[in-house]
């Protein structure tokens, strides 16, 4: 009896993505590991390093290797968004949102949608403004910190309980107007949990720069004219931390049920990463 067949191309693609996201997470949490990459021993056991060419990765098809720079990706996205978006920030049509989702997937290999699991913000195209850092645990003190806690309270009950994952969540946090959702009060307990630390993709529509962030606060107030907020790091990456510290963005939910996509800047196509054998 013959053995069942496996779609090895599909499996390899999934494993490549998992490998890349694991490495990105490791280096994001522990950047000092990078200097050990030059070591052949550690590299051989854990990480593929610059110049190392193992049979495993040498076998990758050329088509899986992206030669596109992050600058090209940003420019491509900005150009495409200009074709899709209306002249001013406003709620988008389902067709516009669908086109943007497809574009985000084509360029960044990410599944991001304006509506996820039946949830949709009042607008997916709006103005984002600068926020301060949030208090991560009782007694936390850092520069440029908001006076109160975020809408979901402290990130951790104590300094000792603050994990690197929670540090990342505060570093790359987003603010959305959950309080103005029409069903916020009637479905509070469900929506509160659903939105807590929900991953979103925020794109500066003028530059195409994109960053994955985690929802950690509710706001801003409608009278400000803004629709979203971003942590100092989010705003700095988007290039919106200067002048009036606000600007137009598209904000979509990231469909990442296995929690594989790391928070932070998105600078390559997740499904077609640049030169996996290089660090």
């Amino acid at each position, binding site marked *: 009896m*013959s*053995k*069942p*067949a*496996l*779609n*090895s191309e*599909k*499996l*390899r693609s*999934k*494993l*490549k993505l*998992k*490998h890349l996201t*694991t*490495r990105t*997470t*490791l280096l994001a*949490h*522990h950047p*000092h*590991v990078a200097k*050990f990459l030059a*070591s052949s*021993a*550690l590299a*051989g*056991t*854990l*990480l*593929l390093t610059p110049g190392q060419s*193992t*049979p*495993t*990765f040498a*076998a990758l098809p050329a088509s899986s290797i992206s030669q596109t720079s992050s600058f090209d990706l940003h420019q491509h996205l900005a150009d495409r968004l200009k074709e899709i978006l209306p002249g001013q920030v406003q709620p988008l049509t389902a067709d516009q949102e669908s086109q943007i989702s497809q574009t985000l997937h084509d360029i960044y290999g990410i599944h991001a949608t304006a509506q996820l699991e039946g949830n949709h913000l009042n607008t997916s195209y709006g103005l984002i403004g600068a926020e301060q850092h949030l208090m991560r645990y009782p007694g936390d003190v850092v520069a440029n910190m908001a006076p109160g806690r975020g809408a979901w309270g402290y990130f951790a009950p104590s300094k000792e309980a603050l*994990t*690197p*994952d929670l540090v990342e969540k505060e570093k790359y946090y987003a603010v959305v107007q959950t309080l103005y959702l029409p069903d916020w009060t009637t479905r509070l307990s469900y929506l509160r949990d659903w939105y807590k630390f929900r991953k979103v993709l925020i794109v500066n529509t003028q530059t195409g720069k994109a960053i994955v962030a985690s929802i950690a606060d509710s706001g801003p107030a409608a009278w400000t004219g803004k629709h979203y907020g971003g942590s100092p790091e989010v705003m700095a990456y988007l290039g919106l931390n200067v002048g009036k510290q606000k600007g137009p963005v598209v904000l979509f939910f990231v469909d990442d049920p*296995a929690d594989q996509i790391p928070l932070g800047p998105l600078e390559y196509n997740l499904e077609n990463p640049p030169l996996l054998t290089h660090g």
Partner: protein
Amino acid sequence: MAKTFLDHLIILEEITSELDVYDLPSDEREEIVGLINHTTHQHILNVILNHLPKEHHENFLTKYQAAPHDPELLAFLKKEIKSDIESEIRIQAKKIKAEILSEIKKSKR
């Protein structure tokens, strides 16, 4: 991939056994097993460093670099980490193995 002190905690045989169920050319199998090995070990290193106090990171990584198979590395971790790191490694390994097994099953033609 070189042997490491983690191998007996990670145990990838259940994944390689699953791969053996399918008709897979040996070169493709080798490539896929390599990806799984690297991914799993990276994930576990992240778990270890998340638990190990930062002041010991340099020492641990230096020792790991010098002798990745040395069983004393696990003894070092048990001494410096307050929680049960051996159990945590097993739990996390089980979790990522389950994810990988799921991907294999979903890739069945």
